[in-house]
């Protein structure tokens, strides 16, 4: 980027990045970053290319040849298990002229044939053949041609990928959040499995808006979801175990370096989110006593791993079903647009229990585009993307607020030091009255956005 207009662009972006960094400790951020083309372009390069981006779950590609189409940033990748059982992820771009060769969202195939001139790749990414090689490419060694592939790493069945191989390993990156992830997505002996195809919808909001919402914003539930919570005649299940109007007291927020999770618990050790009582026989023996104890008392977990992975394990309030687990990806599609992908998971032990699966589906459904809860969020988030592209916020450099939980803001928010709550920085009432989750995710954002680019075509001089 050498032209003068580009360096202007660069200084404007730099300024917003710096304002975000310096605002974190005072609880403010530039509202404009929630819908800005230049910021978005920088995010694709600086955040999505070099962060660990969730691609899929092992249970989705169990057989050799199974594949699913997934994105890193906006780049289309094919996540597959090759004929030797190795997991691979290739860019859907032929090394001849760049044509795409995968049109489906999922399938099973041992090779991909490019529709343009017919080059064929096996599902380990190597070139297998090309039409008329003897006539057209006598001097070309097919072994020199390979599809671009992503760097992969896994944790508890979750497959993540990145384009640039720099920075911490996945486990290092997850850090203390591994403790929470183990109990949210690996609480039973057999592990979890993805049940069916994902809910997918395209929505008009920035990926950060929803990533932030699921990273500890229970405060919005009062206003946004009142209508869904006030059901007339549904069984509220384990939520009845909470004393009336005492929810806040049992609501916590745990923050780690790059993730935040809010969770709701009761005092009853037999709550376990409404799982059948035999769940105790299936508890994963790898879990610590504290992890098991927390799981026993829980009603929900909603968390976000920066940048765009959300994890859920919950029984829905208001009687709208569950327990269910879900992994969500906030797939960026532009500064004010996102594709939401929500996969439903259950412990394998319950996969064949029809009554359980029906309740679990209902919980998952409550947070789909057709769900009694999510459908309310979507209308509101659309408004955020509309307002934050405004010139007023840009020119005035207006700031949004995330001061909850800072000094002098609330008597209710206290640091909780108790091994049962894990190694994160945990606050009581945190999901409701502490915006530490937002501050955590924006610090990760700042860290990635302010780090020098090292690639050959980096935007920096």
């Amino acid at each position, binding site marked *: 980027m050498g032209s003068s207009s580009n360096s202007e662009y660069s200084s404007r972006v730099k300024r917003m990045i710096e304002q975000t960094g310096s605002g974190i400790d005072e609880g403010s951020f530039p509202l404009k970053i929630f819908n800005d083309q230049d910021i978005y372009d920088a995010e694709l390069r600086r955040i999505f290319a070099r962060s660990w981006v969730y691609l899929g779950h092992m249970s989705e590609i169990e057989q050799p040849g199974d594949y699913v189409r997934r994105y890193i940033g906006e780049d289309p990748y094919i996540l597959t298990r090759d004929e030797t059982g190795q997991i691979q992820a290739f860019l859907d771009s032929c090394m001849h002229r760049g044509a795409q060769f995968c049109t489906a969202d999922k399938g099973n195939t041992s090779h991909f044939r490019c529709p343009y001139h017919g080059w064929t790749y096996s599902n380990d990414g190597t070139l297998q053949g090309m039409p008329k090689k003897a006539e057209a490419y006598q001097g070309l060694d097919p072994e020199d041609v390979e599809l671009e592939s992503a760097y992969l790493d896994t944790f508890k069945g979750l497959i993540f990928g990145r384009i640039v191989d720099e920075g911490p390993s996945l486990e290092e990156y997850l850090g203390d959040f591994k403790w929470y992830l183990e109990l949210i997505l690996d609480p039973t002996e057999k592990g979890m499995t993805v049940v*069916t*195809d994902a809910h997918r*919808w395209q929505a008009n909001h920035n990926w950060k808006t929803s990533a932030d919402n699921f990273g500890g914003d229970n405060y919005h539930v009062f206003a946004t979801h009142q209508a869904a919570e006030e059901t007339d005649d*549904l069984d509220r299940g384990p939520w009845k175990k909470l004393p009336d109007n005492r929810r806040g007291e049992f609501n916590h927020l745990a923050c780690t370096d790059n993730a935040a999770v809010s969770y709701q618990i009761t005092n009853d050790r037999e709550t376990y989110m409404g799982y059948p009582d035999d769940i105790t026989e299936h508890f994963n023996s790898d879990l610590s006593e504290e992890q098991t104890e927390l799981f026993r008392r829980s009603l929900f977990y909603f968390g976000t791993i920066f940048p765009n992975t959300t994890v859920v394990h919950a029984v829905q309030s208001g009687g709208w079903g569950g327990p269910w687990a879900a992994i969500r990806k906030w797939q960026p599609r532009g500064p004010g647009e996102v594709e939401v992908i929500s996969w*439903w998971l259950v412990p394998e032990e319950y996969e064949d229990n029809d009554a359980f699966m029906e309740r679990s589906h209902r919980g998952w459904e409550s947070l789909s585009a057709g*769900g009694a809860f999510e459908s309310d969020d*979507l*209308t509101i988030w659309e408004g955020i993307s509309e307002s934050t592209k405004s010139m007023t916020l840009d020119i005035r450099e207006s700031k949004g607020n995330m001061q909850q939980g800072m000094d002098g803001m609330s008597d209710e928010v206290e640091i909780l030091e108790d091994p049962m709550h894990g190694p994160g920085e945990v606050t009581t009432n945190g999901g409701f009255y502490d915006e530490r989750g937002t501050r955590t995710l924006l610090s990760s954002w700042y860290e990635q956005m302010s780090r020098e680019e090292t690639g050959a075509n980096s935007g920096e001089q």
Partner: protein
Amino acid sequence: MRESTTPPRSDSVSPDTQHRVEQFLYAEAELLDTFQLKDWLALLTEDIMIKVPIRTYTHPGTEQSEFSENGYYLRDNYDMIRERVGRLKKSYAWSENPRSRIRHVIGNVRITEVTEESYTVTNNQHVYRSYGDTPENDTLSARRDTVLQRGEAGFKIADRTVFFEDSIVSTKNITLPLL
């Protein structure tokens, strides 16, 4: 779950039956378009299920149906539909505030199965949705399968599945009046 392909059966029901079924669907659509959801609820049997299956584009040539057998955007029984109707009456049910302006256009109505108790009806539909004070709008194209229970007092809806064209839902949310 599969969208069934149905052979033409124009001779299988009388013009009068065809007419009564169509008139019922048109009148029902008007209740949805005008948010008269309490009245609409009265048209449902108490063992109804309404389903909107997930659609996924699978590898070309595979036999597998595009519609999920066990994953739905919405799969609700009577109790849940009733709660949804109650919900949408509230001004703070943001999913329909601003309230959508909805118009069903229903066509290709075919009666595909006739029993003593019921008619199975398939129709195509375009549902136009506009909302707020903006030029934005969505058109949801779908095929809809409905089981109509025959009774003394007229028809009741005993089952419904809406098969959307889109594999990625492209309107901001799916609410009852859009089905």
